[in-house]
């Protein structure tokens, strides 16, 4: 139980890297698609809705497998410069996670934008503030504050999602835990250690979000 701890802690770094990079890219994708969802053009709107529907309606495992095993099959694709990125399981996992969390984030941000009281925007307009500044200085800060609790849940879900990286040969926390279980055959001990590390991360994220909510609360 103690001997497995250093190995598992080392793997935790991989998990955290996967998580932070995916969240970083996912936030941009989410913001982009949330803005597209609010667009009045029907085609753009339907496209953004379709994106979030497909990524939220299928398991993350399918998405990783399509990106990692599926895309490599296209001959043309292998000859482009993108192949440098897509042949690495590490980047495939990050792309799949980013697209997945992007879909959920776009829904969270969309509902946050929609719940902003029209009065705020009208007030801005009547003060003669330009639309661009209204968007960046009024809508975005309010939307971020509104979506903090839901986004906190999404971070925790994504943290659990990174465990799927172990299915595409990456040695993240779950991958290493599985390896130790299958070599030592001590499932319960390893589960307790790896589970505690995950729980600790959940605890930290949960409290961080709570702190931010308080700080930016009104």
């Amino acid at each position: 139980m103690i001997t497995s701890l250093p190995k598992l802690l080392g793997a935790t770094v991989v998990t955290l890297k996967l998580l932070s990079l995916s969240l970083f890219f996912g936030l941009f994708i989410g913001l982009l698609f949330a803005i597209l969802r609010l667009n009045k053009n029907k085609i753009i709107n339907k496209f953004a809705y379709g994106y979030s529907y497909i990524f939220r309606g299928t398991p993350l495992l399918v998405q990783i497998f399509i990106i990692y095993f599926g895309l490599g099959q296209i001959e043309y694709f292998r000859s482009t410069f993108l192949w440098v990125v897509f042949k690495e399981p590490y980047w495939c996992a990050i792309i799949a996670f980013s697209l997945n969390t992007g879909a959920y984030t776009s829904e969270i941000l969309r509902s946050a934008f929609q719940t902003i009281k029209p009065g705020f925007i009208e007030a801005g307009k009547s003060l003669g503030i330009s639309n661009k500044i209204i968007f960046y200085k009024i809508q975005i800060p309010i939307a971020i504050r509104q979506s903090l609790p839901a986004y906190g849940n999404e971070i925790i879900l994504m943290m659990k999602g990174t465990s799927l990286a172990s299915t595409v040969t990456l040695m993240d926390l779950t991958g290493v835990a599985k390896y130790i279980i299958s070599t030592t055959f001590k499932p319960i001990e390893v589960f307790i250690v790896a589970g505690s590390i995950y729980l600790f991360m959940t605890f930290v994220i949960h409290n961080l979000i709570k702190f931010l909510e308080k700080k930016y609360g009104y």
Partner: protein
Amino acid sequence: MGLLAFGDTGWGDELFYATLMTIAVSITAMFIGFLFALIFTPLKLSKNKFFNLIGNSYTTVIRGVPELLVIYLFFFGGSGAVMYVASIFGYNEYIEINAFITGSFAIGIISGAYSTEVFRGAIQSIDKGQFEASQVLGLKRFVYFFKVIMPQMLRLAIPNLSNVWQITLKDTSLISVTGLVEIMRQSYIAAGSTRDPLFFYSFAAVLYLLLTFLSMKLINRLEIKYSRGF
């Protein structure tokens, strides 16, 4: 489309049975989850601190740990645990548990944690007056729970339970790591033998979309049925 033909030449019938397996595992897991929720919701709502702690640990641990890790625990530890219990009763032969049971149980425990939270929320949002009124009327605890609280709770819980169902349905894809032949596993086998992973995994994605879409339609009808009169 020859790849999807039914019979020996294609993978159509295999994928069809795999889809039925996914549905079967999801429903079994959801049902096991309800049983867990039935035990842990009262514990979570209990005023006794010890019971409270048990209920809270269950939902916190299961919701904070990746599903895959829980599945590995059951996959590698399940038969060991059953054999240990059996050895107490004097049975020392090797016992292998079927992948369907291990899988449904693992997913069921996860689904149960989410259901527990949903039921707790639903019960807490029932008006306090309802509890007081049934006490004043002298209703027996049994009648009061099943005739007063339960119908109101279900109405509040159904929209959130539909989320739990979606999560459970998608989580079943993870049992493919234990070798149970459901959609994901079958696609993996088909992709391996035809060397066409893009097609089969995309088809698996379509199957999952279809399942989530159809179940949403069904749940919406239930929701309308249960919210009659409000």
